[in-house]
């Protein structure tokens, strides 16, 4: 697998199809980290194994990475999904990015262009794994008071470092809502209200857009299981609206559920 990726990266770079390949390389100790290969001869530094889970798609939006030229990106399923969503959100054109796609079955997927990527993503709709669903269900099974206590405990650790935001490919807004101060929608200080508002807001703003890559949870320095919030919404969207829309909140069905409306 790794060899195939290296081979592909070499081809892309030496053929001039791309100027940079974004992939995974050796990090501190047994960590892997994002690397940016600009010469074919460096492609051998690319790694692909079970540790390579960081969602690299966000780098496609980063000014200094874009400045390097056309990029190819090593992309597992969540990255592919992110790219598809970012394309839907008009964040880049077909010509900006090439993908070295890797299927969930750990096979290289041939995705010659981003349309192929979109098709591929559409053919593999987002679903929670049974384990993920079980964790969501575990919280659902609690009483409301227990859930409140659970989240208050978790969010009380939040230091508002915004690693969740920075690590999320979907959080590319030029100015995040929390930085909009006229009016000040979200309480900035990292007190209980500020933390809770931040996480509710973020989850809602990711509704219908989150690809369940889990980067927020991995990035959080204090270990808040943030992705649970997104997973709850992903499940809600699947249950209530189906999967056909690109963005569930910009669409509707006349017969959407309304048993809660009087």
């Amino acid at each position, binding site marked *: 697998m790794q060899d195939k990726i290296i081979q592909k990266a070499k081809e892309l770079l030496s053929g001039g199809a791309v100027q940079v390949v974004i992939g995974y390389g050796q990090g501190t100790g047994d960590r892997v980290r994002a690397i940016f290969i600009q010469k074919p001869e460096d492609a051998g530094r690319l790694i692909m194994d079970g540790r390579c889970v960081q969602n690299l798609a966000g780098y496609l939006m980063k000014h200094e990475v874009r400045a390097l030229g056309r990029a190819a990106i090593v992309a597992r399923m969540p990255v592919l999904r992110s790219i598809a969503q970012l394309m839907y959100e008009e964040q880049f054109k077909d010509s900006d990015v090439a993908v070295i796609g890797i299927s969930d079955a750990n096979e290289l997927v041939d995705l010659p262009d981003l349309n192929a990527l979109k098709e591929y993503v559409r053919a593999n709709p987002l679903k929670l794994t049974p384990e993920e669903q079980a964790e*969501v269900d575990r*919280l*659902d099974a609690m009483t*409301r*008071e*227990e*859930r*409140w*206590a*659970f*989240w*208050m405990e978790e969010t009380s650790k939040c230091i508002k470092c915004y690693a969740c935001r920075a690590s999320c490919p979907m959080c590319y807004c030029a100015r995040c*809502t929390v930085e909009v101060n006229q009016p000040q*929608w*979200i*309480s900035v*200080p990292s*007190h*209980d*209200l500020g933390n*809770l*508002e931040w*996480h*509710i*807001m973020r*989850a*809602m703003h990711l*509704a*219908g857009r989150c690809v369940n890559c889990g980067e927020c949870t991995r990035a959080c320095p204090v270990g808040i299981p943030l992705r*649970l*919030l997104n997973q*709850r*919404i992903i499940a*809600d*969207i699947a249950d*209530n*609206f189906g999967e056909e829309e690109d963005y*569930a*909140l*910009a*669409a*509707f*069905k*006349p017969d*959407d*559920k*309304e048993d*809660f*409306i*009087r």
Partner: protein
Amino acid sequence: MAEFEPKIIAFVCNWCTYTGADLTGTSRIKHATNVRIIRLPCTGRIDFMLLMKAFARGADGVIVSGCHPNDCHYTSGNFHARRRWILFRSLLNFMGVDARRIIFSWVSAAEGAKWAEVVNTAVKEIRALGPYDEYKNLAPIRASWRTEHAG
């Protein structure tokens, strides 16, 4: 001891519920005084963050109301709003926020009596739930000031 008087903030659309509430008035249908209406053009305009902020601001309950499905003055604002609420409600509930305190309803311009009923029911239900101090006190400004004044 005096009965707890909940503070309820209502976000309503201009064309249906606001006008419906006008009809409640023209019809002189008496109801509880606890609700303060904020008029918006459409339920589609109602940002979920407004609902959050209402609680932070000290509301014990929130009413969100607009045109019945298919009746939206703007064709589909209420449909968009409904989707947003489905997710928002579920998220709040998942986080342990008391979603019972947000009352969603459709009240048309002709349903003056229904508006009075929505208000009265909301007041009754929120009163039974008690003050929403759990949320209000998240903000230090409320929590610490309150306790100091109480002490």
